[in-house]
């Protein structure tokens, strides 16, 4: 990381370093979108705003990785990756700090940020009840 960062995604990654989650919002149909891209995948409009997201969402689906794929993950398993439906209406993939037995579709999540060497990760944890 973070060699794959491109001109579209740079503002997203830069915001994460500041522990902020930003999304693109279509200037025409007002839909939020992720990943960042030059135009709206619903209406095709290029007019785009970058807005701050609340950092809350729900689990749409998830996997629990129990066997590591590569040495880097040997100390991490088991870990949960979820497709998180943000309250703004678009999805992100993220690690969820939760016991695998406690995940369910619809589980409410709050964003947290984990700093790594040279980049910051968007992660989630279950919302406080």
């Amino acid at each position: 990381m973070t060699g794959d960062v491109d001109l579209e995604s740079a503002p997203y990654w830069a915001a994460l370093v500041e522990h902020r989650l930003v999304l693109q919002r279509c200037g025409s149909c007002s839909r939020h979108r992720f990943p960042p891209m030059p135009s709206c995948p619903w209406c095709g409009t290029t007019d785009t705003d970058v807005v701050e997201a609340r950092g809350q969402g729900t689990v749409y689906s998830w996997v629990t990785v129990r066997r590591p794929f590569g040495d880097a993950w040997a100390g991490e398993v088991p870990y949960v990756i979820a497709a998180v439906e943000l309250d703004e209406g678009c999805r992100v993939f993220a690690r969820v700090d939760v016991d695998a037995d406690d995940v369910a579709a619809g589980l409410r999540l709050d964003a947290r940020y984990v700093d790594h060497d040279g980049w910051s990760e968007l992660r989630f944890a279950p919302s406080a009840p």
Partner: protein
Amino acid sequence: MKAAITGVGSTAFSKESGRSVLSLAREACRAAIDDAGATADDVDGIVSFSVMHDSVPCQAVATALALPELRFAIDADLGGQAPCHLVGLAAMAIETGRARNVLVFRAMNGRSGPRVGTMQFAGMGAQYRYPIGYDAYLMYCAMWARRFLIETGQGVDDLAAVAIAQRAYAERNERAAKRRPLTLRDYLAEPLVVDPFRASDCTVEVDGACALLVTSAEQARDAPHPPAVVASAAYRAGPRSGLDIGDHLLWDDYTRNYTSLLRDELFGRAGVGPDDVQVAEIYDCFSSTVLIGLEGLGICERGTSGGFVRSGATRLDGRLPTNTHGGLLGEGYLHGMNTVTEAALQVQGRAGARQAPRHDVAVVT
């Protein structure tokens, strides 16, 4: 004028071929030409696909086969949708007179060389997956599978049923990579790899090559084997299909895939319905895609595919023999090219110990 598949060819499948991909491709293509009763001079088209340059270009195969010329060639950078799509394009080239005989092949040292399942795909969507450890194809399909099982009220037993039914076919298939019988107890004893998948839910990667020859129905009349007529082909990428081969952030509904989108066009053009299908070969990089495919194609009502498989309906003596080579789960991952060659063999009535009793209409994805 319809096109037809008249011959198929393949190499052995192995863990380590010790050969170049070009050598594998040449052998499978040569075998398909011979099987069709054709000669190299008849072939004027080759189409193939690869992922991250793991294969050889069509021009190299044309050179190795000493073809006089190519009038039609496609080197597609695609995944498992490619075999059927390329057969459809080959048929279109033949139907429009752009080519007379087109080879379709896939060749790969898919086990000893670059392995598709864990390949780091270059792509704009990759930057959001790899850094967080979401970096293998089985993780993506597991993500789809989980939501599919939840929404359709199905579960682990339904995934298991697919793996078990297909293993029974693999036992009858001499070249299958996994031939040891599989029971539900065996399945449940396997550790979860990426929950909800166990090893038996996943394809087994192999080295090898598969090819087939597409020709005109008119020429097919002179071929040594009965033709497998391409009655219809359809391709579909739905809305917001993402930025690269592994991206599924914008796909609305993980419980439905391309099969539900192309079903009406596919069956409509052929003039048949899902109930008319007698053999099904459904792309199965993972067990879950068989269930999603059976429902997407309209063969099963939503939420009933697991029960369909558990009832024995997909076995050789069942209502709809399915993935009769053992599928990619049992025979091996020739990236779906072996799924299409199996469909051709079934329609031609040449599938030997795993031949379906009724085989006039097959669907393959």
